[in-house]
């Protein structure tokens, strides 16, 4: 006979208004093993928790069931509560009567029987609970930061600044990311490179940061505190130890190709650094463009001119295997490809460009040296039309969300345009102008009042060529009439979308992503930088559209979480792991290949049945490798494998209680 206490939380009115808790209480009192039932308005509050602790002591409870919100919300809280009363924290079960009952069955007559079932099931499981003990594992105090944009840079600097080693992995030949491509930043009009490059230099000079550019993480195994990463360093065909970064090679290289950094608007050489302030400031050979690789060893101009002898055509990819205690993922975003908007010219008009392309055209280090010229004929555009929400807030195009940064950068573009070309006129087609942020509304005012941008509320239906003239046709919904604007240049605020390979990255690293490919935080409010995999944190736009200040703040938060992990020498491991009953194990080893973590090994048992010495092989679970998925427990034919916390007995009891 167990002594179960049932605690029914009102959650203010969230539960109490939709579930007849008095009826639930009556039913609970009639259940076997239940010796105490109590209600509280807020069980998670300190007084609420205190009532639980007091009841445990007063009634000698040895199992606790709390009917409240989802266990994903407060299981941890209540585990600590019961522990505070001297009970093993795993002798607690939660009946999810809020998310799975009161919030979805608001009618009392409907909700109450569901709540009764859920409580009864939780009690049945609790009766089968057994005390579990945590074990402890060491922490590898080095962090892996994936992505070298402003988010990754900030996270790396913050972690290193706290005294821990960091390996920063960037897929491109330089760090800097999207922010390096921007000309100015809102709402201050700071020059983007001027505030970013000092941080990039800081990364390269910090002795605790090891920078791996032109590199990719191939796989990640292990668990919090003890990850093992495989990192591929792609062959750059340049020996970085010898290279001085003098620039002779890329000045002499005769082969050109559209540069990725300038989004194809300018050209770069086959051996190149993406932009003048690139970190590292040493070049990479793009083998797809280089004549040596494309034309059987011809050319070799760079090798001839390199006085340091750093060109190494034979270089191969290198694989690094490193251990880490925590990972920060900061892989950034892409822009939605506006070629999918047929009505906006399907990417056919050279003078219909994306906002990021405009950034490159405005930038002093861009393909036009900061002189705004339109791509088709190099003329200075006088009438520029900006179109907001291209893809964003458009379910038909598959992007339902607001990209958040476009209203502000369009205001910036309008101001920049006026500054560069004083006799120009900006037109902005918008749905709503959203300016939540410090000094943002003021900045938008500046675009309208000082820069004289003309904001037109409405969507653009078509962009077409009338002779050689681009014409933008839209609707002014405030005036209720059709508008046509002749434009020299059209700039599209294309939606911020997740990286094309974001799902693959999430699968490789082992956390989840949403329908749009953005990485999912563990909790939208209370754990916005954690993933649901312990030890892996998120920073920046890979988690959702964000501007620079938010990204920097999130990166700092992720770094703080990493540092918090590293502040401990031992980490408590989850005790809900698989366990073998050696009595029943037949040693068939079916459990071993099903384990994704290679956590099951074999051991030899020596027994003396009837005085005769017999040895046999049985499975054994390495508890620090086991993640507690339970796949092995189902594969086990003799029923020797069980999963603590979700044991066969517990689940069986739950099924029986439900089908009563």
């Amino acid at each position, binding site marked *: 006979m167990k002594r179960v206490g049932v605690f029914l939380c009102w959650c203010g009115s969230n539960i109490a208004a939709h579930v007849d808790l008095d009826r639930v209480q009556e039913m609970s009192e009639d259940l076997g093993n239940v010796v105490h039932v109590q209600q509280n308005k807020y069980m998670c509050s300190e007084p609420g928790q205190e009532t639980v602790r007091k009841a445990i002591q007063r009634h000698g409870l040895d199992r606790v069931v709390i009917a409240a919100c989802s266990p994903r919300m407060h299981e941890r809280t209540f585990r600590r509560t019961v522990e505070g009363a001297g009970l093993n924290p795993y002798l607690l079960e939660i009946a*999810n009567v809020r998310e799975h009952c009161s919030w979805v069955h608001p009618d009392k007559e409907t909700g109450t029987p569901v709540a009764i079932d859920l409580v009864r099931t939780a009690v049945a499981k609790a009766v089968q609970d057994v005390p579990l003990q945590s074990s402890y594992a060491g922490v590898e105090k080095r962090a892996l930061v994936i992505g070298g944009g402003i988010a990754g840079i900030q996270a790396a600097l913050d972690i290193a600044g706290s005294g821990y080693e960091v390996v920063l992995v960037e897929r491109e030949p330089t760090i800097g990311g999207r922010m390096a491509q921007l000309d100015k930043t809102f709402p201050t009009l700071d020059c983007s490179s001027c505030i970013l490059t000092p941080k990039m230099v800081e990364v390269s000079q910090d002795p605790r940061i090891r920078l791996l550019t032109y590199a990719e993480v191939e796989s990640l195994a292990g668990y919090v505190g003890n990850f093992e990463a495989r990192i591929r360093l792609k062959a750059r065909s340049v020996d970085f130890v010898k290279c001085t970064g003098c620039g002779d090679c890329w000045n002499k290289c005769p082969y050109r190709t559209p540069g990725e950094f300038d989004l194809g608007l300018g050209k770069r050489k086959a051996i190149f650094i993406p932009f003048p302030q690139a970190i590292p400031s040493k070049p990479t050979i793009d083998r797809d463009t280089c004549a040596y690789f494309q034309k059987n060893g011809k050319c070799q101009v760079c090798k001839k001119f390199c006085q340091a002898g750093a060109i190494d055509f034979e270089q191969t990819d290198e694989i690094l295997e490193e251990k880490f205690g925590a990972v920060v993922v900061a892989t950034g975003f892409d822009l939605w490809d506006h070629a999918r908007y047929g009505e906006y010219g399907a990417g056919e008009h050279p003078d219909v460009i994306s906002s990021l392309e405009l950034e490159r055209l405005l930038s002093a280090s861009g393909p036009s040296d900061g002189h705004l010229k339109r791509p088709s004929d190099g003329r200075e555009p006088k009438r520029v039309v900006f179109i907001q929400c291209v893809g964003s807030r458009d379910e038909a195009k598959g992007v339902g969300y607001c990209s958040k940064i476009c209203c502000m950068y369009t205001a910036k573009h309008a101001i920049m345009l006026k500054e560069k070309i004083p006799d120009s006129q900006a037109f902005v087609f918008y749905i709503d102008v959203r300016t939540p942020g410090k000094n943002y509304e003021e900045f938008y005012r500046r675009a309208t009042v000082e820069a004289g941008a003309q904001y037109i509320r409405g969507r653009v239906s078509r962009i077409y060529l009338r002779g050689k003239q681009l014409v933008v046709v839209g609707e002014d919904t405030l005036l209720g009439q059709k508008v046509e604007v002749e434009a020299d240049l059209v700039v599209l605020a294309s939606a911020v979308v997740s990286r094309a390979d974001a799902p693959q990255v999430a699968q490789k690293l082992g956390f989840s992503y949403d329908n749009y490919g953005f990485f999912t935080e563990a909790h939208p409010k209370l754990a916005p930088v954690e993933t649901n995999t312990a030890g892996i944190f998120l920073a920046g736009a890979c988690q959702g559209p964000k501007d620079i200040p938010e990204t920097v703040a999130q990166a700092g938060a992720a770094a703080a979480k990493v540092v918090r992990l590293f502040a401990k020498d031992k980490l408590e491991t989850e005790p809900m792991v698989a366990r073998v009953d050696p009595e029943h194990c037949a040693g068939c080893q079916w459990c071993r290949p099903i384990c994704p973590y290679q956590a099951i090994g074999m051991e030899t048992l020596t027994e003396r049945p009837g005085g005769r010495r017999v040895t046999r092989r049985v499975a054994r679970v390495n508890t620090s490798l086991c993640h507690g998925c339970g796949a092995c427990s189902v594969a086990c034919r003799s029923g020797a494998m069980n*999963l603590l916390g979700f044991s066969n007995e517990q689940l069986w009891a739950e099924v029986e209680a439900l*089908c009563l």
Partner: protein
Amino acid sequence: MPLAEVEPKIVAFFCNWCSYAGADLAGTSRIQYPPSVRIIRVPCSGRVNPRFILRAFQLGADGVLVAGCHPGDCHYSTGNYFSRRRLSLLRRFLAYLGIDERRFRVRWISASEGPRFAETVKEMTEELRQLGPAQKVAATSVD
């Protein structure tokens, strides 16, 4: 018994990382669905032993729903692949046991798919109403 008035009972096994969170999201978003489903939380759909499902049917559950992360997205990398194979095998076995296979569904529901979860419950409840109450096979444990 007039079928439309009986609320069928669905025993559901939901993985903690995707589907259970998806059901939570339906709650947070206040999406209403029929009060037919009772969710048992498991760490992974790969934890669901076919015996649990058979036990539910044996005790008269009108339907059993197993939900896990989408293939490729398993929190434990491969758990849902195993459950997919295991449970398709179980489905074929159900007919042999005299259990209508329409009473058994496996769905991939991610943490952001609250509406999909609610939709699944609605559809399944509707179908179970058509099928009528299931028979309780035995009350004794098969263990």
